[in-house]
């Protein structure tokens, strides 16, 4: 047994070095003093053309949209498709209406273009979006967001608390 001890010691030292190395590296980084910026914050993307209201940039607070926009769109998608509910607040068309911007020639750039609103974050996050294989990428008709559903209806508030996908939950596909 004793003949293995030196070898074990060397192994233990190596192991502890390996474990401590990353901590040492981060400790060095922290010495900089300033709060380091996340790589995400260096991303730049076109500002939306207009705000939802004077106080609110998007149809929901921006932080919430960053985290949950896909849920809102998915929910809206099923309700519109299967139940004919056509509220505008979480309509993908309204996303495009607001977030597609014009180039120097005054023509709309597809919203899924490489430097555009959707792609700038999605390429950073390595998330591929399929929306625009089928859906329009440029505004075609004027927005009706404010005329139809700028106020919170019972429907729009229910979306937050209710089941995410009513089709899968209880009723089955609408008949």
């Amino acid at each position, binding site marked *: 047994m004793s003949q293995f001890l030196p070898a074990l010691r060397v192994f233990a030292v190596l192991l502890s070095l390996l474990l401590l190395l990353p901590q040492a590296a981060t400790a060095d980084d922290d010495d900089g003093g300033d709060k380091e910026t996340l790589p995400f914050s260096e991303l730049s993307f076109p500002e939306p053309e207009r705000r939802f209201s004077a106080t609110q940039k998007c149809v929901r607070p921006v932080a919430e949209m960053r985290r949950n926009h896909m849920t809102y769109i998915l929910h809206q998608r*099923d309700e519109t*498709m299967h139940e*004919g509910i056509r509220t505008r607040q979480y309509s993908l068309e309204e996303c495009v209406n607001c977030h597609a911007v014009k180039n120097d020639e005054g023509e709309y750039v597809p919203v899924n273009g490489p430097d555009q609103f959707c792609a700038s974050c999605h390429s950073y996050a390595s998330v591929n979006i399929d929306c625009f294989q089928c859906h*329009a990428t440029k505004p075609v008709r004027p927005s009706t967001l404010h005329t139809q559903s700028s106020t919170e209806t019972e429907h729009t508030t229910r979306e937050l608390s209710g089941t995410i996908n009513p089709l899968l939950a209880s009723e089955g596909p*609408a008949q």
Partner: protein
Amino acid sequence: MSESSNLADIARRNFLTRAGAVTGAAAIAPGVFLSVTASARPADEAVTARKRWGILVDTNKCASGCNDCVTACEEENGWGHSEPESNPEQKAHWIRTVDIRNKSTGFAKTLPIMCQHCETPPCVDVCPTGASFRRADGIVLVDKHICIGCRYCMMACPYKARSFVHEDLHDQKPWAPRGKGTVESCTMCVQRVDKDRIPACVEACSADNHNALIFGDLYDENSEISKALKAQDSVEIRGDLGLNTGIRYRGI
């Protein structure tokens, strides 16, 4: 007590809604009424089975060589010129005109054929993912979000109403998303119907003064289509299949 008062409330509300709709329609101008006014469904309310949308095609009024319903559909829904590489059999055809001829008499006519919006649609029966479905108000649709492009529905449809997109598409209409790898067919212009407008083909046909197409609620006894169906004979194409189609024909 509460139940009966609730019922009374609902009855009162319905009466008020209807009265409001009627005054609204009448107020537009004396003698001018919108064709489909009766009850505008709010944007946040789901469709119900209290309505069933249908179209009556009077082929006697179809002008020979007229293609206006097809071009109107192409324009509205953005198909027709979107697949340059596909051959004519592969290209999208939401609605097409078919020439029929009586061999013994030589009498020929043209009629439009599209999704017949069956009450018991074979395309829905065979769909493995639930993408092919019938909406509560009778409109048969493809949910392209869950369509896997297997094309079983195309084989099941007795009317050859569906088509498959073989190419990458660009510049689709926001109200009619379509894309490669999914099956599509006539939607009865669901985006218009949901906003109390009539389908593009019906609109184009009446704009030409042919009036061969009548759109309306089959369950509403007072709708133009129900009155027309009650007054004169009409048939379903392949009525022997017992699919109870929403599209009915006269003169074939």
